[in-house]
């Protein structure tokens, strides 16, 4: 054998070895932050919960079109107004080999609803869970709840025996000062099993060959690589070290598109970006007497001062979707009429302001986060400039999210930015109850501006317990129409989702911005 031949043989052997390795499809995902831990009941971070959903599953789940479909439960029926009965799927095994049964559901639901559980807000109204037989569970509520299944998509199910064995039946109590077993270990029923984790470096899942469902994916292994720095994450994608990154920074979309073998996945998502309005008697701007924003006419004038198209085309690089209402089209409660974008007309706005008694305009404070939403601070700068054109002087503050939301909540500003994806509820009721209902108790938790309308409050309460889907949608649309007429909030746009992947990767981009790798293929 000549040296040349030897080299050739060696190369082909290597090529064969590589081809063999390529059969085992590893999905290398790069994200802008790590999981907070492995216990889906210990935090509300939506990325963490959605990734853990590969290991743990819930009674029901969303499909790629965000419709509810059965998962660990095969069906459900409303027994009476406050009880729903779930029939469980037979023959499911946890990753450690234990059988799945009603006991596990009861233990998990109680754990999630425990008074120390940070996610209990996600299943408000759940009073008790009872085992009927091995494969049937009754969930008791404090009233009729049309959104129960939506909530349950996020209540992931543990093995009760495993929890008991490791003293983890109660949720992790951060104040106990010790590490919960479930923070670093996982045992679910999902399509992938947990293999290893180094915080902030890598989390590895391997395929669960015994999964109950017909797998649509062809992956054998998932590697989650958190890369917080945008530039590094893009570089790692470009250098071929990753199969997909999420989110992919908007400003790098062209760079990625122009690279062979990879592309950007972009679509408007569920998150609606909007401005909250101070409606109290006093403006927070020291140069302003009273509060002009209390007048409906003033708020209506401001709508005409905003050029929605300019915001979309210049600030959002054409990737966002203008919103006339407070929810994205995928969310129940969305209404075509409400969604119509008012004409951009600064002259009309100025005239309306003059008619409302402010011919010289007025001053207001505006607050924005600078590290929470896509181009958040830039949007506010553009808004300030647009308002200035109609004589409204804006004192703009852009600061980090932890401070921004604190200020917004305390109503220390006149206009603040908020993004609302309605998750995990995925329903207009989320907006009605948190942002439009008069503040008090469980309601209006994100209505610091104090918008209040008796009819909206009445509709909100009715929507909460109406089980007839048709009627419910009509009531929601009606409430949103009132809020739109009175400009309770200033909606701007649905924020774009931006992922980037190798061309070989096939994955549905779901509007809730949660990559579902059990639907992904590498070809």
């Amino acid at each position: 054998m000549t040296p040349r031949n030897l080299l050739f043989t060696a190369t082909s052997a290597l090529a064969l070895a590589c081809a063999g390795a390529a059969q085992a499809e590893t999905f290398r995902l790069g994200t802008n932050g790590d999981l907070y831990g492995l216990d889906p009941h210990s935090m509300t971070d939506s990325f963490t919960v959605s990734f853990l959903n590969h290991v743990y599953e819930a009674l029901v789940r969303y499909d790629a079109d965000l419709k509810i479909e059965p998962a660990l439960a095969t069906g459900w029926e409303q027994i009476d107004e406050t009880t729903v009965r779930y029939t469980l799927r037979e023959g499911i095994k946890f990753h450690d080999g234990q059988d799945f049964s009603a006991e596990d559901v009861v233990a998990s639901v109680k754990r999630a609803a425990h008074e120390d559980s940070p996610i209990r807000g996600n299943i408000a109204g759940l009073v008790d869970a009872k085992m009927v037989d091995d494969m049937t569970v009754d969930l008791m509520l404090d009233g009729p709840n049309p959104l129960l299944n939506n909530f349950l998509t996020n209540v992931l199910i543990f093995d009760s025996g495993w929890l008991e064995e490791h003293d983890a039946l109660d949720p992790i109590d951060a104040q106990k000062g010790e590490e919960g077993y479930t923070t670093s270990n996982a045992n679910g029923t999902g399509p992938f099993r947990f293999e290893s984790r180094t915080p902030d470096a890598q989390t590895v899942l391997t395929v669960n060959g015994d999964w109950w469902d017909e797998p649509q994916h062809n992956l054998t292994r998932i590697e989650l690589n958190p890369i917080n720095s945008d530039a590094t994450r893009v570089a790692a994608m470009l250098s071929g070290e990753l199969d997909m990154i999420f989110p992919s920074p908007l400003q790098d979309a062209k760079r990625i598109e122009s690279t062979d073998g990879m592309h950007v996945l972009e679509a408007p998502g569920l998150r609606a970006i909007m401005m909250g309005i101070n409606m109290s008697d006093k403006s927070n701007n020291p140069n302003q007497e009273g509060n002009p924003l209390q007048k409906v006419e003033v708020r209506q004038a401001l709508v005409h001062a905003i050029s929605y198209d300019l915001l979309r085309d210049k600030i959002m690089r054409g990737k966002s979707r203008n919103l006339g209402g407070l929810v994205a089209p995928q969310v129940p409660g969305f209404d075509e009429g409400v969604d119509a974008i008012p004409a951009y007309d600064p002259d009309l706005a100025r005239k309306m302001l003059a008619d409302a008694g402010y011919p010289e305009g007025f001053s207001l404070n505006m607050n924005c986060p600078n590290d929470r939403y896509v181009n958040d601070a830039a949007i506010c700068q553009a808004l300030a400039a647009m308002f200035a054109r109609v004589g409204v002087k804006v004192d703009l503050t852009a600061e980090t999210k932890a401070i921004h939301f604190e200020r917004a909540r305390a109503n220390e500003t006149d206009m603040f930015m908020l993004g609302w994806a309605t998750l995990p509820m995925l329903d207009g009721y989320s907006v009605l109850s948190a942002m439009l209902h008069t503040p008090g108790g469980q309601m209006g938790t994100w209505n610091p501006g104090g918008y209040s309308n008796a009819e909206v409050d009445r509709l909100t309460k009715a929507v909460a317990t109406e089980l007839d889907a048709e009627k419910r949608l009509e009531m929601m649309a009606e409430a949103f129409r009132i809020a739109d007429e009175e400009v309770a909030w200033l909606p701007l746009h649905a924020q774009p989702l931006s992922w980037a992947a190798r061309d070989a990767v096939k994955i549905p981009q779901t509007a809730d911005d949660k990559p579902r790798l059990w639907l992904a293929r590498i070809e």
Partner: protein
Amino acid sequence: MFAFLIRRIIQAALVMLVVASIAFLMFRFLGDPISNLLPEDATVQDRAEMREKMGLNDPVVVQYGRFIVDAAQGDFGQSYRNNRPVSDLLAERFPATAELVLVAASLALALGIPLGIYTALNPRGWLSQGLQVISLLGISVPTFVTGILLILVFSVSLGWLPSFGRGTVVDLGWWTTGFLTVSGLKALILPAIMLALFQMTLIMRLVRAEMLEVLRTDYIKFAKARGIPNRMLHFKYALKNTLIPVMTIFGLQLGGLIAFAIITETVFQWPGMGFLFIQAVNFTDVPVMAAYLVLVSFIFVVINTLVDLLYNVADPRLRAEKKPARGV
């Protein structure tokens, strides 16, 4: 010597107390940890309960006191973000930072000193001039820019080295090391260069300046006049005296390397302590931030103490002062 150490320990305790108190005063401006811990639509009541449970309603002084008392017993509390004890987190991250700093420091010394000597001995050579220009760049270009450039060239264009992470590490039980695997070593190269670049150029310029200074002194001139060969003159007599100030500066910089590894760790997603700190800042994770700041101030004090001790060893004059003078 013993008195010196005792004094230093008291000093260290004071420095750490002051750092912790400054940290606690600053945390008030970082925002509300609650907003990261509860869902966006949590009720006012939920928030109030959580706040009470976590002791955030107590005055800052009380929170500070509690932190000091617990920390004195070795308990730095529980991270809000990771739900794990802070001491575990720091212990887990320390090896990554230590290895990075070790390699960067060695690199800076191993390249900086010879280059400094070379440029001092051949001040007019074109290579020296070139190195001077490059060193100016090394000092003035911000490190995150060099980091990104390194990634662009060696990861994206050439595809030789990984752009993020620590590669495969070997767990020794009490220490995780990247020194024992190929991917671990490859992953070290770019971050170590980024971290070392500034220090290297600093050392090079320092050695050069000191060496030029020493070469002008009388004893070198006399030695030259006596006919001592150049090689011996430069490396035995001149270099030794050059290195004393270099050692002091480097010792101080080493603390800086550990503290400022934050930027390198952020650019390269290096799972070290600095990165942990940055994430804690974003999350308003007060226990982690406080513990990290206290730990870094402790490391600074330890390194400074060691440098002072070494200085004593290296400079015979300092030792001589303490001994009774021999008859002349």
